[in-house]
């Protein structure tokens, strides 16, 4: 089974988010970029499947400009066999999905895995767009994934619980915890990542579906009002009359 794992390069959760260029771009200064944590779950599961002899090949794919290559190398260090960078800024989810669909088709992949959403734009649509574009099914968000021949047994999150599903390859899956534990690259992995193949492809054009015009930050919080631990009644009265939430 050939797996295509799609990863995003995103600001890590502790990064302070600010905007530049008249609020039309993320300011990358001071931002550490990482593999999106949900994609990291997908990659970890793919590597487990390869280690168990259930997958033959893993390709990591990212849609991004040259500055995403360090993040792609990390995916190689974690255990992807090779990587593809589609050389373009990820302008919208539809564009990203079209690149993935194209790569999945031309590379003859059986399973396309990615996180349930990326932590920058939280759209959570790329997996489903890819599935429709390929004429495949999609299961998301997947919490557990087992392979039995060409059938996948999965559990997916539903409100207040989980649902058990079975589907055949080829398939697209959107992953989340606890599908696998995040993998930390070993020293050997990091060394091998330097020489594994990172192919750069030119993108396919698509119609722009969503045009991001501008960004803004939320209003600043006014600070915490402390209540003495001996005086919980005061908190109750503030929540009732001041905050009006109870």
């Amino acid at each position, binding site marked *: 089974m050939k797996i295509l794992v799609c990863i995003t390069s995103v600001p890590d959760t502790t990064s302070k988010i600010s905007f530049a260029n008249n609020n039309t771009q993320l300011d990358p200064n001071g931002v550490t970029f990482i593999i999106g944590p949900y994609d990291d779950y997908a990659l970890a599961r793919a590597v487990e499947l390869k280690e168990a002899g259930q997958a033959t090949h893993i390709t990591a794919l990212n849609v991004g400009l040259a500055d995403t290559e360090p993040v792609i190398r990390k995916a190689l260090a974690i255990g992807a066999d090779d990587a593809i960078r589609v050389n373009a800024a990820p302008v919208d*989810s539809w564009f990203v999905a079209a690149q993935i669909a194209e790569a999945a088709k031309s590379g003859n992949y059986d399973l396309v895995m990615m996180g349930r959403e990326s932590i920058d734009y939280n*759209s959570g*649509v790329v997996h489903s767009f890819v599935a429709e574009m390929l004429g495949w099914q999609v299961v998301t968000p997947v919490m557990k994934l087992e392979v039995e021949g060409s059938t996948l047994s999965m559990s997916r999150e539903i409100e*207040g619980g989980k*649902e058990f599903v079975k589907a055949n390859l080829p398939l697209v899956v959107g992953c989340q915890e*606890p599908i696998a534990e995040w993998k930390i690259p070993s020293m050997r992995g990091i060394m091998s990542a330097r020489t594994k193949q990172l192919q750069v492809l030119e993108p396919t054009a698509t119609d722009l579906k969503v045009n991001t015009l501008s*960004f803004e930050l939320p209003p600043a919080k006014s600070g*915490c009002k402390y209540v003495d*631990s001996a005086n919980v*009644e005061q908190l109750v009265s503030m929540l009732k009359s001041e905050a009006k939430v109870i």
Partner: protein
Amino acid sequence: MSVLVLIEATEGSIKKSSIEAACYAKAVATQTNAPVSALVVGDASETEIQTLGKFGIEKAYFLEGESFKRFAIGPVSVALAKAAKSTSANVIIGAKSNLSDAVLPRTTAALQASMTTNVVSLPSTSGGFEVKRSIFTGKAFATVKLEADIKVLSVKKNAIDLTESPVSIQVEKLEVSLSDADNSVKVTGQEKANAEISLPEADIVVSGGRGLKGPENWGLVTDLAKTLHAATGCSKPVSDLDWRPHHEHVGQTGIKVSPNLYIAIGISGAIQHIAGINSSKVIVAINKDPEAPIFKVADYGIVGDAFEVVPKLTEALSKI
């Protein structure tokens, strides 16, 4: 041109988030002088469906068939696309939910539409179709323009207040034919916690962290939650340690909540947890460490021992 809203019903009742979506859809319809209809998925009687008329919905379609009752994603996506075509919908609305997360993008792709998620307010339709959405897991907002003829919006909780604008409603069955491919993902079972208030829908959430020292102490959290008719949540370490079930994990890679009130008990406030709660209207923190980062995002705080403070709080609340 019309507006179509996806309505979810569970255990016979239309979900509160779906009512919000209906109000949002009605507001967009009024703004654009268009009719508004609904596609109801799940278990709801005709009488229950008719309550949508209170919120301005003129026509509601229901579905018959096991796969629709079980919210099977492929079939529901096909049904939504069919309803969109039948009503010439150019705007499709869904409340953010596990179902809509999976269905709306499928339908979007089938219709070659433009889709955006976590929408926080009504669109501006004077020059095109622009809408504000929450991004970076609540740390920022973006204004986006949807360029395709059909626009699909996944609307975040509290994007709009519930408003009644009663009309008479027509309820009709929608015939949908499904292919083998549509039915090819088989649901073999479900496991649900019983009679719980859904975390993503909850108006009040009481959440516990490692400061509670062990699962045997969770009575503190559940008693407070019961008094407030609140949902219960937990931090990632608590969920990883299996003290609490997975679906209670609130955080960057867990549930993102949007309650009016979030009470964090014995939770230090790691950035990953804050990412899950920053859409809360009011945050209360109870922690014995005055340096805990949770106090930086809290609106109200008590520095103290949760084992002493929380029972007192529960008692004070039971008196009001």
